[in-house]
């Protein structure tokens, strides 16, 4: 997952072109996006899978056949179907399906929260940097450069490692990884929009900065920034589970896919398929978010 963000320059360029197409956005723009999105079969399949997973983990307490924390020394590492356990049991005899469902809650939370935090903080800072320019831009962007000087996984591991294990530390460290990336995108897009002719003419006709930001800049930059943020969810899910896998996220006995993958490593000789299950969940979620984000990006592209 290291540096899945390096496509940034390409992504940035694409988003910038989209933002520049902003002028051509008529009132029916969003219905057009929805129509194009609904025609994209691959994206719709992925969105449906994500929706199903979301429902399953939200209603985990209803759907789960067992208590995810109920251990049993005699029922350890049993295969799927054993004594009513649809997906078998883990290394402490807990029901696998129930743990995957409850684990999904934490994995999704850990994966999405840092992106949301970064979207808000990075978005605000980036738009400010792009709109104001000058020394404010200098200060914000040079600070961003420092964080860019670390490979993203390393930065997350370093901060998490120094702060110690825990959910809030993991979220904090991952937010620090994603904020600079969102700042860069937001700054690029905002600078691009700011230099468009019609923004120039609004400025020339005496509109206040606040009005220009509200009426001209925000509507055109929020979309591209949001699309970029959705593309980070996939990275974030893998990174979050990775931190837990290293023991830096959640702690046992909590259920979380990355942590489950780690604790089940001992079972790869006796029950290899069982040990793979949490990884399958991470993979599925991550690839669906990835494809859905790509679909959203091309649906929002006015050129297509």
């Amino acid at each position, binding site marked *: 997952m*290291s540096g899945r963000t390096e496509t940034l320059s390409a992504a940035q360029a694409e988003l910038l072109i989209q933002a520049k197409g902003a002028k051509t956005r008529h009132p029916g723009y969003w219905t057009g996006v929805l129509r194009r999105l609904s025609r994209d079969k691959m994206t719709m399949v992925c969105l449906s899978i994500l929706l199903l997973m979301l429902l399953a983990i939200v209603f985990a307490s209803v759907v789960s056949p067992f208590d995810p924390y109920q251990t049993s020394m005699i029922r350890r590492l049993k295969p799927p179907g054993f004594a009513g356990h649809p997906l078998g049991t883990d290394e402490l005899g807990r029901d696998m399906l129930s743990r995957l469902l409850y684990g999904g809650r934490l994995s999704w939370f850990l994966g999405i929260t840092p992106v949301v935090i970064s979207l808000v903080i990075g978005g605000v800072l980036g738009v400010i940097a792009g709109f104001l320019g000058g020394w404010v831009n200098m200060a914000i962007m040079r600070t961003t450069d420092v964080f860019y000087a*670390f490979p993203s996984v390393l930065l997350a591991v370093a901060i998490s*490692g120094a702060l110690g294990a825990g959910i809030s530390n993991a979220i904090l460290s991952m937010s620090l990884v994603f904020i600079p990336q969102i700042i860069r995108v937001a700054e690029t897009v905002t600078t691009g929009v700011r230099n468009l002719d019609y923004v120039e003419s609004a400025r020339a006709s005496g509109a206040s900065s606040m009005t220009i930001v509200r009426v001209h800049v925000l509507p055109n930059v929020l979309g591209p920034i949001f699309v970029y943020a959705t593309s980070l969810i996939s990275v974030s899910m*893998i990174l979050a589970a990775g931190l837990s896998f290293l023991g830096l996220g959640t702690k046992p006995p909590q259920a979380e896919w990355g942590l489950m993958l780690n604790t089940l490593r001992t079972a790869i000789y006796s029950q290899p398929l069982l040990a793979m299950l949490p990884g399958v969940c991470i993979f599925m979620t991550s690839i669906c*978010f990835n494809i859905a984000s790509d679909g959203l990006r091309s649906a929002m592209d006015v050129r297509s």
Partner: protein
Amino acid sequence: MIFYLIRRVLYAIPISLAVSLVCFMLVHIAPGDPINAIVPPDAPQAVVEQIKHEYGLDKPLPVQFGLWLYQVSQGDLGRSLATGRSVWSDLRPATANTLRLAVTASLIGFVLGLILGGLAGTFRGTWIDRIATTFAVAGVSIPHYWLGMVMVILFSVTLGALPAMGAGPGGATDWAWDWAHIQYLILPAVTLSVIPMGIITRTVRGVVGEIMNQDFVNTLRGKGMLPRNIFLHVVKNAAPNALSVMGLQLGYLMGGSILVETVFSWPGTGFLLNSAIFQRDIPLLQGTILVLALFFVALNLIVDLVQTALDPRIKRS
């Protein structure tokens, strides 16, 4: 252009300093008194005070940073809490091992990515494109630590073809490019290579597709150039971008191999980091991260310089 080069080299200095500052601060964001990062928690109070003074921990932070920076510039990264050895003595062989792993993985990933991305970009919208794109999306979406486990199950547990753990005879320090050692490298390198494979495929597909859509390709066809002649033009146009992404990928793999190294017990920097985290060995953590980050800064610099040299369009002044 020469001014750009000089400025770019000079710019690496403040960035390196800032990176060092972040690494320095790691000790101070760690919970508890920073002294706990240097002495074991059960040390007597008098010893603690004495060491505090020795390390300058009773001085203001900026002064401490200056002292630390001076030590680092002398090659002194401090001592490991867990082993008592100097951090550098553990870090040097670990860095070499990680470099071996990252370079091998990058080469596999680059070759596959260039082929898949080139084909996908040339034949956009065909089934070739769809297959290559599927590989690319899978490559960037797969949790590679999990892929590592799958590889172990397939090739070590089931087939018994390749070893699953370690770096072969001699452990962390005695590497050689013979089969006895290389067989240990294969699984982790292949696992790690899916990331650059996916990213290079995506990048090259985008770059090649964009180039093929440019007017000058039409001019080339109009001059009667054959596909192989046009291929040369595409390669030269795509090279600066592709090379810079590949350079950065190598850096990301150096810093991001921690998960794969953990799965395969590969004795590199990631493995070192993992044990540093596990034992709360902050000097070891700090030293390892500093070395990796500075390596990345240097790589970034080289990539920029190479890209500038390769691309006649860039006239940065």
